[in-house]
């Protein structure tokens, strides 16, 4: 079958335009009822609670960031603490003592100076006075 030419198609489209699809009579009543429901203002607390609040974008972003931070902090706080079981044990410890000793001020070297010691610094004693501190008899 040959396709229609332009004139034939235009004639059919004109016919179709003359008989457009029309809506049902209920559509009007239905839409007006829906509009009435839409416009019915809530009263009292409902109106207060359903009232939209405009928040500037920077304030909104700040609030969102604060909420995220609070959430993170709360998550950390609410996490159970790690409990480590302990018992008391004896551990031997070597304690160090600090000992003070007089040293010659002009000494250039550190440490024991036994290498440089001479008998000249130890003059012979003038008098020996022996004294018995303990006798062998004391043990008997």
């Amino acid at each position, binding site marked *: *079958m*040959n*396709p*229609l*030419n*332009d004139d*034939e*198609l235009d*004639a*059919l*489209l004109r*016919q*179709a*335009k*003359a*008989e*457009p*699809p*029309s*809506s*049902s009579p209920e*559509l*009007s009543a*239905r*839409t*007006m009822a*829906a*509009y*009435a429901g*839409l*416009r019915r*203002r809530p009263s009292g607390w409902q109106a207060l609670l359903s009232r939209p609040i405009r928040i500037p974008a920077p304030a909104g972003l700040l609030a969102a960031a604060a909420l995220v931070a609070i959430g993170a902090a709360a998550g950390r706080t609410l996490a159970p603490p790690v409990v480590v079981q302990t018992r008391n044990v004896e551990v031997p410890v070597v304690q160090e003592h600090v000992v003070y000793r007089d040293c010659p001020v002009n000494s250039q070297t550190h440490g024991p100076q036994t290498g440089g010691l001479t008998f000249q610094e130890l003059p012979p004693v003038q008098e020996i006075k022996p004294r018995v501190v303990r006798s062998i008899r004391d043990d008997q």
Partner: protein
Amino acid sequence: MLHHDESLLLKRAAAGHTEAFRVLFERHREAVYRFAWHLSGNSGSAEDVTQECFLRLVRHPQRFDAGRGSLRQYLYGMVRNLVRQHRDAAARELPLEEEGEPALPARPPAWSETADVARAVHAAVTELPALQREALALFEFEGLSLEETAAVVGADVGTVKSRLYRARERLRRALAPYGKEKQAPRSLP
């Protein structure tokens, strides 16, 4: 002047003046319904879209900018979006058992029972691909200019011309049985 009048009516309707809403509704109802019908191919869906379209209009009156076009054009744009949403929602609501079955083409009621030419044309239009269908409905049935059609569908004039050409080519073939020389019009296969 009409734009100013409609903007005023819209403001009043949004503020709760029922009479202003009624005037707007009665002024645009048939055009909105017709376009919705051509896009959806279904009278029930077209009525739902028409109602939702007017309710959205008064819910968000600030979205209409009279500087960008007429209220009628704005409503056509809303219908376009709503029909798409309805189609997506219907596709999501398909029961699982019906998956894989071929979708039935949207046909107007009593399509096979009548040889009425107007019905045949409307049915053939609903069989067109969506973009061609909306271009043809706006240009041929709603009487918009090429520029206005392009503004509603968000395409340039050249694209709209191309869609119209392809739509008419399809209609030429689909409506061939209804040519002048044919004595007894038959329903389409």
